[in-house]
């Protein structure tokens, strides 16, 4: 099982939950499972071309997936995926 942490802005899609648990072995599978359980996530996270939106950052085990294998990044049992708005800091 993989935990997906949901930012405030998307919690209404998950009935207010801050965290959702899914079955997945890659990040792409985790996000697909998230959308299956709570429809709407796909449209909010991905652009028309199927890429993660410009202002969405995703982390697997606290590491930015752009430093890993992007959507193909493996996710192991017990790991956490974090969805975080990119606009912060500085």
């Amino acid at each position: 099982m993989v935990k997906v942490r949901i930012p405030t802005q998307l919690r209404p899609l998950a009935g207010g939950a801050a965290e959702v648990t899914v079955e997945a072995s890659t990040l792409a599978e985790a996000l697909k499972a998230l959308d299956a359980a709570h429809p709407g996530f796909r449209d909010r996270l991905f652009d028309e071309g199927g890429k993660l939106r410009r202002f969405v950052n995703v982390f697997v085990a606290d590491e930015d997936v752009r430093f890993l294998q992007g959507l193909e990044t493996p996710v192991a049992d017990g790991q956490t995926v974090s969805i975080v708005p990119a606009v912060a800091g500085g």
Partner: protein
Amino acid sequence: MPFVEGLRCRECARPYPAEALHVCEFCFGPLEVAYDYDAIKASITRKKVAAGPLSIWRYADLLPASPDGLDLGAGFTPLVRAERLGAELGLRDLWIKNDTLNPTGSFKDRVVTVALARARELGFKVAACASTGNLANSVAAHAARAGMRHVVFIPSDLESGKVAASAIYGEHLVSVRGSYDDVNRLCAELASDHPTWAFVNVNLRTYYAEGSKTLAYETAEQLGWEAPDHVVVPIASGSQLTKVAKGFAELVQVGLVEPSEVRISGAQATGCSPVETAFREGHDFVRPVRPSTIAKSLAIGNPADGPYALDAVRQSGGSIGAVTDDEIVEGIKLLARTEGIFAETAGGVTIATLAKLASGGVVRPHERVVAFVTGTGLKTIEAVTPVVGPTAEIDPTLESFAAAIDVDY
């Protein structure tokens, strides 16, 4: 504040109320403050500004918060003519905006003043931030002044001056084992779990960022209500540069300055130059990097406003340069030697980049140029102690002095 109409997504233009919101719920784009510029134009005059306080609040009509007593004196720092530095760089009309002279020694006092003034209006009692050092210093100081609690977060490898200058205010300074980008990600997540905390650069970021516009306002006012030809601005998240561009545009919009073109150039350290790389390679997106530079206050590998900074530089006909750690130290020394201003590493980045852009002909000899020096050198002593020190150590005797120091003046 009376002229704020609400917030609006910079990407998809969806409207939001003027609350503690920083990203669009639909596309995650940044929210911007929407003003009634016609009403501002009818209200603001050069005379009214000149009669205002000697702080950023003289531009209250153009800011998204009311002063409400939160004023440690941020802003209205000196703009000094830099003749000796200009002569060394071949620039005839060079000026330094000396933002080392803010209450906590950096430009961050501008943004924090606005963010916490708005936070208080919204009823927040706790101030927080993700910081490379200067911001934490400023949030802690302004929170103390405002009677707010504070929890500020920094990476654990900071300069000792920046650590002490937050810790002294006596509340929670949290040192995080990781980079600034790790701290930022942690705070972005914490902000979701602590909605009663005002993270100045997360949930209050829309207001916070507006504070940087005052750098442009002051520069124009201090030049006799004329915009300069070219400004050189350091880039960390890219927010400051983006807002400086906005500030100059607004001055024209509200009728304080005649229409003019300001070229805007950016400065980064080669050890963390994702925006410079994107500029050089012609990209409109910024690929994140893992920083390794002595310019820790600019060490943001994943800059939130990088794409907007690129736009602002390109639209203005400016450029972005990057300099090595050695060049940064030389830049600090050069500014100190020629103008008597001791800047932190970010100032070294700005001056060294200015030198590079001047020698490359990007910054032109006849332009009126303003370089923004945004933080004091006393907080990054570690950067220069390996290369500067006493010229001699002597006994307290005339002979010892004469033997050690040979000067003809």
